[in-house]
């Protein structure tokens, strides 16, 4: 699916006609909209989250032809970067609007939803239970780092840019957070 995404994005970049662009954009956004929605909804409270998502989708669609990256990771970093700007704009408009992290119940509901298309093995359940314990046992700052890196899939450099920290600083923080979570769950 990620290869398909890059093919669509590359084709979009060189497509001149409007009907074909619209078709490609629809296909691209059917794939990426849920990921962007999750990113936004994890950060902004409804109903503002809907407006922020609209702004993000519009900004990504408008700039899609200029995206010059060559991998899904770069695409997501780029799209999340746009989303982050829009979320930060929202924070500036409404202070204290940061959301509480997802509860364990919400996490379990999403995992359950994912099992409709890919059933969970006993080993999967064991791993996922452990991962949820790691997240819920972590202190807020650590949980945020672990969430960004492992759940949203942001790499160290992207988190470093967002947090205005060095790459090594982020790498060490995440390592320490992981160790701390392991010791809390053990």
């Amino acid at each position, binding site marked *: 699916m990620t290869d398909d995404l890059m093919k669509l994005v590359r084709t979009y970049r060189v497509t001149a006609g409007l009907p074909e*662009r619209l078709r490609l954009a629809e296909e691209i*956004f059917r794939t990426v909209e849920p*990921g962007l929605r999750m990113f936004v909804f994890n950060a902004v409270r409804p109903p503002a989250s809907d407006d922020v998502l609209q702004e993000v989708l519009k900004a990504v669609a408008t700039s899609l*032809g200029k995206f010059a*990256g060559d991998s899904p990771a770069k695409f997501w970093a780029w799209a999340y970067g746009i989303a982050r700007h829009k979320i930060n704009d929202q924070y500036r408009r409404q202070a204290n609007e940061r959301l509480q992290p997802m509860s364990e119940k919400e996490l379990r509901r999403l*995992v359950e939803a994912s099992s409709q298309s890919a059933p969970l093995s006993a080993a999967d359940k064991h791993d996922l239970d*452990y991962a949820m314990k790691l997240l819920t046992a972590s202190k807020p700052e650590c949980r945020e780092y672990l969430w960004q890196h492992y759940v949203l899939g942001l790499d160290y450099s992207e988190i470093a840019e967002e947090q205005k920290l060095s790459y090594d600083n982020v790498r060490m923080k995440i390592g320490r957070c992981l160790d701390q979570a*392991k010791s809390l769950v053990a």
Partner: protein
Amino acid sequence: MPKKTPDPEAALQKLGERLRAGFAKEHPAQNLDTVREAVREQYAQEQKTPRAAKSAPDAAKGKGRQPPEPEPER
């Protein structure tokens, strides 16, 4: 026999994949009207300034990871 403790990084990555998949299942893509509108606007703008539109992809080379909008606050 007690179960072996999973590898924490692999477990968290697996959780991330599951959460993203679950979220996509619960919230299938919506808002495509916004996307269509943005594509149409962008297209109309390019028709007005064809030279700028042609040079845009070249100018953007190597900047794929950067968000496109100027952010004066940053």
